[in-house]
Every structure is written in C-alpha cells, then in structure tokens.
C-alpha cells in the first residue's frame, strides 16, 4: 500500500503533465492542416497556412514576439546574474530577497497596469515633474504601445527578474559559495568575475529550464502584450486571440495555423538562445583563460542594486497608483492627487465579486492541494527508489511552462466541448489549473524535501515505525514551512491563470483574473484599479495566512520557530 501509492503518484503526475499538452496540441494541429469535420474541413490541406502567409504584417508580428521575448529574458537574467554575483552571501541579498519575494505573487496584468499608470504621458511620473516644466497637457509621446515594444519589455522585466532571482537563490545552496568567494578574492579577481568564472556555469545548469520558461512565456504572452505592447501590429499572440474570437468560422483554421506558427516562433526563440548560450560559454572560457580579473566592478555592483531597487519600487509604486485610482473621484491632469476620493468604485464592485471569488478560491485550493499530494507522492517515490529526478523528468515538469499555453489550451477547449463535459466544468477547470500549478509546487518543494536530514527517519524506522507513519509524524511536520510555501505559490499561480480559465470555463465560471481582464477592456482606470488590487490581494492573503500556520503549529516547539 505505502509502496503503491507513490508509484501511482509518479504515473499520475506524468500523465497529468503530458496528456493535456499532447491532446491539446493535436486539437490545434489537426485544424491547422484543415481537418475539423464540423466546420467543413474533412481533408488535410495546407490552405490554413497559405492564408496565414497571406496575412499582412505577420512577419513583423512574429519578429516582434521573438525579439521582445528574448530581450526581456536577456535583461532579466543579466540583472539577476550581476546582482547575485555581487551580493550573494551578504546581508544585502537577504534584505532584497524580502523585497522581491512578494513580487512573485503580483499577477502580470496588475504589474503591467501599474507600470502603465506610472510611465504613460498622463501618468504619475510626468505629473510629478509637470509643475517644474509648466506642462499642463500630457505630452504627445508614444508610450506605452511603442512600436519597438520597449514598454512591454520593461513590463516583462519587472516580473521576470524576481522570478529568476528567486529561482537562482533556490539553487545557490548547491554551490560552494563562500569557498569560491575566498578563492577568487585571494587570486585578486573582482567579485562579479570570480562568481561568474567559478559558480555561474553550474548554477546556470540548474536554472536553465526556468530561463527557457521565461523565454516561452515572454514570447507568447497575451495580457502584458495587450496592456503595454505595440498594437499596430500587435505581437503574434495578441493576433491569435483575435482570430480565435472571430465570428467568421473559417478563421478558426487560420487561428490554429497561427497557433502552430506561435509554437515555431517560441522554438525559434529557444534555438536562438541555445546559440547565445554557446557563444557566452566560448566568451566566458576565453576571458577566464586570459585571466581577466575585472577588479573594478564596484560601479556595476552599485548599478545592479539600483536597478533591482527600481524594479521593486516600480511594482510597488504601480500598485499604490492603482490603489489611488480605485478611490479616485475626478482626477485630471496634471493634478498629483484626485480632487475627491470616493468609495464608489469599490462599492459597485464588491457585491459582484462574490461568485468569482469563490471560484478562484475553490479552484486555487483544489488544484494546489492535488498538486501537493502528487508532489509528495513523487518525492516519496524518489526516497524509496533512491533515484532523484533526472534531467528528462525535470524537462517534463517544465513542459507546461515551455510549450506556449495558447497553442494547446485552444485544442483542449475543443476536446472539452466535444466530450460534452459541461457538468464537470469545475473539475475540468481544476485539472487544467493543475497542469500549470504542479510544476511550480514540485520545483518549490523538491529541494527542501531532498535536503532534509534522513537520519531522523532512519531512527524512527529503527524504532519500528512504518514508512507512512514516519512520513506523517516526522517528515511532514518538519517540512511544514516549505510545504505551506509551495501551497501559497501554487495558489498564486492558479489565481493568475487567464487564458486556460477563459477557454475552459467559457465564462460560466469566472475568477478574479478573468473578471479583471474583461473589465480592463472597458479601460476605466478606477475599475482597473479595483480589480488589479483584488487580483493582487487574494494571493497575498494566502501567503500571509499560510505563514501564520507554522508558528501556531509549533507553539510548543521552540527550535521549530523561525
């Protein structure tokens, strides 16, 4: 029994990760080649791709997707690398960690809106300097939605840097930081150079799937692209969503072909990144072998802390502006504050958020709990077999994050409707969320799980306890904190899901996030403020509540308190 459960958990986990993606991709591929009987497509043909090729502006859209995605990844990773290289092992790092961790729970859409409200020509920053320059009208500058996608890249960087930063921090204990630091310093290398030469290669190997996930996400993102990205033409993903919603049914074929192209575009981005990786490796080796020490890196170190501070500051200031807008009466340019404050936006929203809130909570907790159970099963299996997950298994875990959502949830939707599963909508929603929640939960829990000193359990087993009893009375209580962190992270991921919720719930069930994006289409800053804040508060509350549990549980165990 106790041996069987973990084994089936592994099979279930793999199935839950791989099957939806496989079927979803098939559901997209067949119509892309003209096969969708109900819409009159009975034969395989290349017509959808011919139509796609004839679409004006498509190359620009595709190039824009790759370029913004790669640029955002490169900048985020660069900032993370220089900052971690400069400050790993110092109190500065742990202080900044406290600033950046909460950023992970801020949904992309909320962060993007906050940034837009901050830097737009009618935004808060210009209002701040308006009296100095005598500006009484917003200047006619093309931000956001600039054709090069610079604002969009900025919007992605402020969210992806904290993600990469925390992933890197998680991998940091597995390298010999202080020994390497001493060694590099004793040979007179700069802090950054020493870190990059000695530690970065093995550190990068551990975080590279996360980097690929960032590339895939950034090159296929919809909500951030709509809020900040260029719109004439937009990125490929935003065009895809338009086609999927087109009332003309023949456009469904085009949309499927476009989804296949999106997959190609993301793959091209990844390929380009592989080339960059090789190039960087060559450069790194060359520079190391020449013995370049880069001793004067203090300026770069200072800049990196400034940039990281700016990122945190931008997100928090953005949230503050969102909060002010949600309470604003008339607020004209260039006033720094509204002429009047009113609760009207909140009062009119609150009665309507009951149902979406319940759906958000139920879906979030159900999918996260399932994810936790499966993850514990898989990790327990690792202990039984004594083998830890291979790189291949790790790739499987990252698969839902690396295959662009838009390319397979569209096919899943068709399958879901085709199966007539309308009564099981909530179940389907939980399962789809699980696909995206599971990787985060697993990645977050795996390291602490493996790091726990096994001698506690060996003693317990020697005292005659069963494996299950050891798990329940020793391992789980000792790991309660990382388990709760994984729970909170999984919940935040579920809350943030937009596209899968929209397509599978079909508007019958709405969550705070689908509500927020739907209302954002009205482009009312006050309403956006209310919903973006709600979208942020819900996962924050989950984090806060779950943080309280361990101290309550461990009231009587002094050594377990932190």
């Amino acid at each position, binding site marked *: 029994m106790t041996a069987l459960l973990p084994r089936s958990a592994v099979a279930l986990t793999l199935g839950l990760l791989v099957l939806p993606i*496989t079927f979803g991709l*098939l*559901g997209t591929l*067949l119509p892309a080649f003209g096969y969708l*009987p*109900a*819409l009159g497509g009975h034969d395989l043909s290349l017509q959808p791709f011919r139509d796609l090729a004839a679409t*004006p*502006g498509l190359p*620009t*859209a595709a190039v824009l997707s790759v370029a913004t995605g790669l640029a955002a990844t490169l900048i985020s990773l660069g900032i993370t690398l220089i900052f971690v290289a400069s400050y790993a092992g110092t109190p500065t790092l742990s202080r900044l960690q406290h600033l950046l961790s909460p950023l992970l729970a801020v949904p992309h859409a909320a962060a993007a809106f906050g940034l837009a409200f901050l830097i737009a020509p*009618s935004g808060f920053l210009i209002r701040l300097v308006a009296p100095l320059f005598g500006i009484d*009208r*917003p200047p*006619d500058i*093309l931000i956001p*939605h600039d*054709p090069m996608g610079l604002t969009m890249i900025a919007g992605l960087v402020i969210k992806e840097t904290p993600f990469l930063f925390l992933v890197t921090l998680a991998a940091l204990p597995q390298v010999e930081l202080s020994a390497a630091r001493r060694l590099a310093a004793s040979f007179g290398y700069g802090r950054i150079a020493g870190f990059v030469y000695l530690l970065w290669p093995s550190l990068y190997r551990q975080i590279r799937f996360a980097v690929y996930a960032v590339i895939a996400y950034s090159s296929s993102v919809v909500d951030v692209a709509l809020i900040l990205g*260029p*719109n*004439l*033409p937009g990125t490929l993903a935003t065009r895809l969503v338009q086609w*999927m*919603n087109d*009332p*003309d*049914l023949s456009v*469904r074929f085009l949309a499927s072909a476009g989804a296949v192209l999106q997959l190609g575009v993301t793959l091209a981005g990844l390929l380009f990144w592989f080339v960059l990786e090789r190039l960087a490796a060559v450069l790194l080796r060359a520079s190391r072998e020449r013995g370049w020490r880069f001793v004067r890196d203090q300026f770069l170190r200072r800049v990196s802390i400034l940039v990281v501070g700016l990122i945190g500051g931008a997100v928090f200031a953005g949230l503050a502006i969102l909060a002010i807008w949600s309470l*604003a*009466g*008339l607020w*004209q*340019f260039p006033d720094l504050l509204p002429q*009047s404050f009113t609760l*009207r936006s909140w009062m*009119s929203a609150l*009665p*309507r958020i009951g149902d979406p809130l319940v759906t958000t909570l139920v879906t979030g907790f159900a999918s996260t709990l399932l994810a936790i159970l499966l993850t514990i099963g898989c990790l327990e299996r690792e202990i039984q077999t004594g083998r830890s997950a291979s790189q291949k298994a790790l790739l499987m875990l990252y698969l839902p994050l690396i295959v662009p959502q838009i390319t397979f949830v569209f096919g899943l*939707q*068709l*399958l879901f*409707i*085709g*199966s*007539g599963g*309308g009564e099981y909508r909530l179940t389907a929603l939980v399962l789809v969320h699980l696909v995206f929640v599971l990787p985060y939960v697993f990645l977050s829990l795996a390291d602490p799980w493996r790091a726990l000193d096994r001698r506690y359990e060996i003693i317990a087993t020697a005292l005659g306890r069963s494996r299950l009893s050891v798990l329940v009375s020793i391992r789980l209580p000792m790991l309660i904190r990382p388990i709760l962190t994984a729970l909170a992270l999984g919940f935040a991921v579920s809350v943030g899901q937009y596209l899968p919720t929209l397509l599978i719930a*079909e*508007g*019958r069930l*709405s969550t705070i996030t689908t509500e927020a*994006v*739907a*209302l*954002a*289409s*009205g*482009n*009312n*800053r*006050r309403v956006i403020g209310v919903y973006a804040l709600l979208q942020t508060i819900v996962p924050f509350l989950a984090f806060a509540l779950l943080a309280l549990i361990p101290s309550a549980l461990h009231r009587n165990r002094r050594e377990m308190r932190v």
Partner: protein
Amino acid sequence: MRLMTGIFAAALMAATSSFPAKAAGPELSDWAAVEKAATGQTVYFNAWGGSENINAYLEWVGAEMQSRYGVSVVQVKLEDTASAVAKVIAEKAAGKNDGGSVDLIWINGENFVSMKQQGLLLTPGWASSLPNWAYVDVENQPTILTDFTEPTEGLESPWGGAKMVFFHDSARTEAFAMPDNATALLDWAKKNPGRFSYPAPPDFTGSSFLKQVLSEVIGAPSKLAKPVSEETFNADVEPLFAYLDQLHPAAWRSGKTFPQNYSDMKQKLADGELEIIFAFNPSEASAGIKAGELPETVRSFTFSKGTLGNTHFVAIPYNANAKEGALVTANFLISPEAQLRKQDPTYWGDPTVLAMSKLPEPDRAAFKALDLGAATLAPDKLGPVIAEPHASWMERIEVEWRRRYASGN
C-alpha cells in the same frame, strides 16, 4: 502517436456526427405557457462586460426576473461579442445542438449577420410575437427592422438605440469652434495636432467613425445600402482613405497608435490629451460627469447633416439551453419599466426603442420626467440619422484599414 491521433479523431467524430440541428422552438402564441416553462430556468446572458453601470443594470434585471418569473439571469461578461458567437460556433462544431452554453446574446451588425447566415439563431422569428412588442417604435426607428441593412426577421429583439455624438470640454475649447461635418473635423484636427483620434477598428466606436466618414465622403451614398461590389470597392473607399491619410499625421500620437475604445478616449478627454471625442450613446458624457470621470464642463454636439445611428438587440442561439427563459427575459427588456430605467442616466442612459405614443400615460410621463443631464442633447437636437452601411462594407474596410495602417510597413 498514431494511436493518440486515432483516439482524438474518434472522439471528435463521435462528438460531431450526432443529429443535425432541430428547430423545435417554444410555442409563442401561448405566452402563459412560455412563462410557465421558463420558471426555474437559468439564462446565461452573454453581454459585453466592460462597463460597470451596464453590469449593474443587468444585475437589476436578474433580480427582477427572479422575483417576477423565477428565472435566474446570469451575465456572462464578454470582452468582445464575437467570443460568444465563437462559442456557439464551437458548440455546433462539436455537435452540441442542445443544451448550449449561450442562452441570450447582446448583439447587432456583423455578429448578427454572421449568426443569421450560419443558421446559429433560434428560428422562426420570435421577436414580434413578444407581448411587449406592441410598444416598440418600428415606425420611426427603421433600424429596428433592418440591422445594418440586414432584415432582422424577428430573429433578434431590439434593446436600445445608439447615435453618434461628439463631446468636448467647454473649459478648454469653445463650442462655436467645433466642426459640423467630417471635412471640418479634418481641418480642426490639422489646426490642433495631436488632439483628435479614433479607436482602432475593430473596436465598434472606431469602426463607426470610419463609417461616418465614408458615408459623408463617398461619391454615391446609395451604394452603402447594398453589399460591396468587388469591381468598384477600391474606387468607392478611396475618398475615405485619402481622408485618413490626411488625418493621421495630425492625429494623437501621429496616428502611430490609437485609443483602445470609448472609455480610453473618455479618460484622455479628462486628461486633456484629446479635445474632441465621440461616443455611440448620447448620454455618455452626462454619465461620465456623474461618475466623476469627466469634468462638469463637458458638452455634446453632432453634425447638422446627420450622424450614424443604429439599434442594438438581443438574440437567442439555436441551441440555447433555456429558450423560454431567454424569451421571457427578452420580453422584460422591452417592458416600459426596464426601458425607463435603462434610459435613466443614473443607471445607464441608453435611448429607448419604445414609441412614446404607444405607451400608457403614466409611463410616458415617467419618460418625460427623466433628467438627462446638462451634457446630453435633447432628443430633438440630435440631428438626422445616417443609416448603417451593409455589413459587408465594414468587414472589407476593417481588412483594408489593417492592411494600410496596422501591418507595420
């Protein structure tokens, strides 16, 4: 892999090969029976959800429907009506000819024509059999029976009127300086660079602006009542694009990007980024002032030779799950009481589709007593109505617009 393909194809076939659409709609002549059958049903009303006051109005409708008829009405908030159409298409594709997920849909124009042509609507026509149809102003509002030149044939029931109206902030710009036709608007824009723009199509306010200009500058306006003629299309729309080519360099952000929609323009009027904006609902300015989104100095104007006008509707998909509930809801939506509240700017401020002359005296008095607000033009000051062109024009113009201005060349 082949096995997977096989399984998938089999699932798809099984789902799609079920029986064809059947047209056994409810019997409308016995309205009491319809109401009875509706009791206990849940109507999923697919309606654009981008406006809080409209959502609040629909919530009131839901509460009334529950207490009066025992029908629960749930608004499925859409970003774009096209996604509800797409949903019905997907259901037809999957062979779901019964128990569909869309019961009632807020619709007009292209989406209506598309659904009508693809046989996605409840037939036969039902709207003129609704008890409250007796109040509908079919005589004076021709757009109730022809939606974008497409005969409605009772496949959709009118819900509200719309007319293009322009707004400016009288604290920043003088009323007498406001243009009186599209050409004058172009001159004004050239003199005030960066202070006028329009939402990029397919946003419907933006598309409406293109149609307004086309109606004014096309050589032979009678062509717009008929479907696009392929041979002459390019020549027909040339004046429109010549107009836009001149407008864009003088427009907001030099025409490199466009406002998203009306709400976006409203915010930009409040910020002073734009000086002339327009909406498809005459009471929008008053509603904006009331909500604290626009300064109290905003005023309305129209063109003396007429602006675009149309009607918006509700329709029922052929595979709706709660057909009776949807019918009873559609009937309630054109009741004098629901229409009065809808025209009241406190709640929504959308012009009614009912004829004042057909209403009972107390209802007529209640409509008269509505305070429309200082920024709203009285119904007799709204100017003539220019009818919507045939839906095929908009589709072609949107494609052409995108080719010229949105393909990044």
